[in-house]
């Protein structure tokens, strides 16, 4: 039986619906990274699991217990889950040791001595053995987060939920937390990590969920998601693709404007001069050779030119999506020179989509 079973999860707010219909099944021991753009419901999704948010509809079974059922004793269920927050949420008026001891004593009824021993153990585990008697405000951000992790671990949960654990940390402290999270990976814990750290997601996960458009847009192994994302949005996210679009029509086809905008765009991307030049060139020649003649010769043609650059791997593509034009756009041309240049610097890519032709721009 899966550890977490989510069916038809829906969360509505008065003006926005971040989760439309989520269905997923997570097994014990899995380590799931949840990635995606902001505002796509990642944290909401995570917080629904331990009922910090209440779903509008749907069911969430955690270890067989329906969290959404009003009759459920949430404290019991929550005990099995530990949560680590973006803003750490340590108890400021207690020492670190007491932070870790308190839940044990209050909830599990463990004696102070035993709780203390456990606290020390966990602190060692996260590399904070000297900090037991410190107050939270005396620790750095990374140390605080590690302490928070220790506090959660002391309860020996089955599931650990991480809600953007490094988002509030400055880059120098991110790695210490990441390494702690990584060290937990082999321990049999089921972990759900909402994160923006792609490296973490890639290194540690068994599965990656890309959340977009109100649900899990695409999921797969890290290799799949980060290597060969299937779906467009996933790709765009994972490769951090930036695009420039311009639509030409039969009646309006201002090449100068297109190129001006493209020039702007290229300037904003971290591209080498050569790459930028090739980009411009490709666009210009493509238009001259193929697009503009096609538009001129048709009555109601529309072509959208899209130039995409991946921040991830530097790959540049240019594509043309068209309608209202018969035949293959790139079949022949009268402008030999332009097409020659074009062909030289580009490589056609296969694409199943109709009325869309894609080329990689060679650098």
């Amino acid at each position, binding site marked *: 039986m899966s550890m977490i079973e989510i069916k038809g999860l829906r969360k509505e707010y008065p003006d926005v619906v971040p989760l439309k219909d989520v269905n997923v099944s997570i097994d014990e021991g899995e380590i799931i990274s949840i990635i995606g753009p902001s505002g796509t419901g990642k944290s909401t999704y995570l917080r629904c699991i331990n009922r910090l948010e209440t779903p509008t509809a749907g069911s969430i079974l955690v270890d067989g217990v329906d969290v959404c059922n009003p009759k459920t004793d949430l404290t019991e269920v*929550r005990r099995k889950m530990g*949560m680590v*927050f973006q803003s750490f949420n340590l*108890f400021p008026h207690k020492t670190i040791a*007491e932070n870790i*001891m308190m839940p044990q004593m*209050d909830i599990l009824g463990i004696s*102070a001595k035993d709780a203390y021993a456990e606290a020390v153990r966990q602190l060692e585990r996260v590399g904070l053995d000297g900090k037991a008697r410190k107050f939270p405000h005396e620790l750095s951000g990374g140390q605080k987060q590690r302490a928070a992790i220790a506090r959660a671990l002391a309860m020996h949960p089955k599931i650990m939920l991480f809600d953007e654990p490094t988002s509030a940390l400055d880059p120098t402290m991110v790695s210490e937390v990441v390494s702690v999270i990584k060290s937990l990976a082999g321990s049999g814990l089921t972990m759900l990590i909402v994160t923006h750290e792609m490296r973490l997601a890639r290194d540690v996960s068994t599965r990656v969920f890309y959340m977009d458009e109100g649900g899990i847009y695409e999921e797969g192994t890290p290799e799949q998601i980060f290597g060969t994302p299937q779906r467009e949005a996933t790709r765009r996210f994972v490769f951090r693709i930036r695009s420039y679009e311009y639509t030409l029509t039969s009646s309006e086809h201002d090449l100068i404007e297109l190129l001006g905008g493209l020039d702007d765009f290229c300037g904003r991307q971290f591209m080498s001069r050569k790459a930028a030049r090739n980009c411009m060139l490709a666009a210009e020649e493509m238009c001259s050779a193929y697009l503009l003649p096609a538009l001129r010769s048709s009555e109601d043609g529309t072509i959208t030119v899209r130039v995409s650059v991946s921040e991830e791997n530097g790959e540049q593509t240019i594509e043309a999506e068209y309608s209202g034009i018969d035949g293959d756009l790139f079949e022949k041309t009268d402008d030999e020179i332009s097409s020659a240049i074009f062909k030289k610097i580009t490589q056609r890519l296969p694409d199943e989509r109709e009325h869309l032709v894609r080329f990689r721009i060679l650098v």
Partner: protein
Amino acid sequence: MINHTKTISAERFLAFLLCAAVIIAMLAQLIPAFFMPIKAEATEGAVPEFKTFADLTGKTVAMLTGAPFEELVLEKNPDVKEIQYFSTPTDMILALKTDKIDAFLANNAAASMMVNQDSTLAVFPESLEDTDFGFAFKKGDPAREKWQAAFDSLSRERIDELWDAWIGTDESKKILPEQDWSGANGTVKVAACDSVPPMCYAGNNGELVGFDIAVMLEIARVLDVHLDFTGMEFASVMAEVESGKAQVGSGSFVLNEERRKLMDFVTYHEASYVMLVRAEDGGISAQQTASVQQTASVQKTVTVPEYTSLSELNGRKFGLVNGSPFAEIIESKVSDVDEYLYFSSIPDMALALKAGKIDAFLTGDTVADTMISEDAGLAAFPIPFGELEYAFALQKGNPMTKQWQNACQKVGEERIQELYEIWLGTDDSKKILPEQDWAGANGTVRVASGDNVPPVSYVAENGRLEGFEIAVLLEMAKELDVHLDFTGMELSSLLTSLQTGKVDISNSCLAVTEERQKALDLVSYRKGSYVLVVRAKEKTVTAPEFSSFADLDGKTVAMLAGAPFEEMVREKNPDIGGVQYFATVADMQLALQTGKIDAFVTNNAVAAMLSNQDIGLAVFPESLGDTYYGFAFKKGDPLRDEWQAAYDSLDQERISELWDIWLGTDDSKKVLPAQDWSGANGTIKVASCDSLPPMSYAGENGEPTGFDIAVLLEMAKVLDVHLDFTGLEFSGIMAEVESGKAQVGNGSIMMTEERKALMDFVPYHEASFVLIVRAAEQTVEQPTFADSLKASFERTFITDARWKMILLGLLRTVIIAICAGVLGTLLGFGLVLLRHQNNAVTNKLIAVYSSLITGIPVVVILMVLYYIVFGKLDAPAMVVAIIGFTVIFGARAYGLIWNAVTAVDTGQREAALALGYSEKLAFRRVILPQSRSLYFQPLKIQMVMLLKETSVAGYITVLEMTRAVDLVRSRTMEAFFPLITAAAIYFVLTWLLTKLISTAEQYLEKKHEQRKIKGVD
């Protein structure tokens, strides 16, 4: 983590400012006293030094040169030493003040003005002559007729108007008109005296002004002439007119025969001559500088008996003449005579009394009255000791007794009274005994007479026995036709002589007593009474500032809140300025002293006490009304009749005695009896005013005491009930009785129609309303600051061990504050927990409760609890106060803590929940403890405020510190020291509380820093 901001220096600075302000206020009170000159001010109408012309014998009288009054003066008193002449009235005034002359003449106008302006002058009561003022014309000058006609054409009213303007003190009215008529009939020269104000004198710019000038200008307007005035000395005016240099002369000429012969006059106003003399306060110049004297001419000195109540006589020494049986009579009134000292004669006793060897002696009124009127050192004790009969004594069984009795009757009461008046009067010329010129056919009777009992029986200058009794005996002897052979002897020997048969009859102002009747035959000839003679002491009586109701126009009158006197006062004078209401007599007294009000109404008892204690106050001579003091009962309560019956059964003398005790100044007598009767008929609750001495006020230990209480206890004894007293403010008493919380109410309540309509009363003493006003002047010796401070301190703390009452008040304040603080905080936490449940119903209830508390003043909440919520229950006021403050503090604590709770970061709750905490547990263990740093300081401040707010608990009769101090204030009749003390004590208390809490805070902080983990370390 607790935040230590550096507020300590700011607090210290504020404390310093407060102390400085207090000290400055104290000094400001006293500074005027240091700098104000102490003047002797006499009131208007100063009393003249000489009152009749006869007084002027051997004195020097002055008048203006040229004034023909020597004759007049000498006519009135030929023995005037001499007449002196001066050139101006100013000179004469100076001469009078420096004792060079004793009196001078002036006309009525000048005299009025001078006396108005100079309080050291007074008008001699007898006037010299009445005549007219006239303008002088050359004899035979026809112009005079024209002028007379012109004057006659003027309206009398106008002349009076001018007279009032120029004789009065309002300078703004003394303006002459411009001569803006045509003057077609020419210009007339006028010679006018420039130095006889207010008739004719030089004004500010040298121009001639005055009543004369004003009248002349009116005449000139009629005649259409212009006047050209020339000022000169009085003596030159007539010469000027006679020589023709001027046509008219003026100078307040008073017309007399001599003058009329010399010149013609136009009379223009009545005149009379009066003399001016010094005012009675004596020589003026030296004594107007600052000196400390109680010389108010308004303060009279009267002699009063040293003792005025029977209780004062206890423990004293009494004098008796050897053989007199008065010990019994004395002991019938005085319970505790220290000892009797025996004397051989009454004059001896009088001497001993004055020397202090004895404190009083009893004698008959005939002797007493004479002695007292002749000797200012003696006075009659005001309470009578009973009636007696004066008698002559004969041997028991003497057959002549009957005849003597007949003879006495024949002489008759009238004749005896006549003789009485002669012999006890002051006209010695009438005190002549008749010669024994009748036959004496029935023999000679030997008489033994007291030789030293004037005016009754004494040896006169010529060696003969004289006196009232001698005269009576002689009359009787005449009837019996016997001759009397008198022998004078000592009182103690008289009766022995009689009993041994050496004499037949004796007289010595003998009083009839049972014992004597057994031993002797007595022929009584006159009724009289016993008089106890005591020493006299002087008492200065202050005259009031206002002496009639008419004086109260526009003045502010005050009375106690709830007292129904406004009607009465307005009835007497509808034009009073306004009526103000105060809570206590002490407040009114202070307001009167500081000029905020001009008079206040109180009852005769309080008035007597106040004017004794404070010479700055005086009793207004007209009384407002007479009524009775009554004990109040709920209307229709049958209890009233029971109590009325009980009162009626009391001995009126006992009531009088109590009255004297409680209104007297001897505090040691003011002791209430313990309620040691069985109280079988239950306990009655009494609502007593705790701030109206001497009738009903709080004693040493805060228990109600006073005349009212004493009388009530007497009545309770009769009814065999116990009384349970509660002290409260006057305005609360009737409410207590009406609401049923008490059955009887007292507080020197005067029975008025209005009150009788509301409640039933048992009257227990006559009462009258009087007004208290300021004394007309204050010339008191100022004590030094240190002295007055010491006196204040004593009065506030030492007297009656008042410090105990204040200490008790302090204790109560602290108890209420601590209990309410602790319980209120717990209540607050409880409400916070409840609120956390987030139940819609309880949320609403809590919100309503909270807004009620914040929306209603503390005082009102307390009173609502006391009178309404706990009204019917018998809850002690302290308990109600604690409950009330708990409820109030609880709401505040809740508000503070809940605010703090909602301010804690929401992430804390989420972390706790995520760990598996329930909402409740998360709240208790994670949220609430964290909110402490947010609510702690505000809560501390609220506690301090609570301590101070307890000061209003007095409104529901709790004797906490403010009320205790207020009661002391009403006893000592001063505001300053008690209030400053209260302020200081509160300041110290709040400082202590703050310090305490801060110390606790610091301790916790330290503990926190130690990072010790419970259960591990």
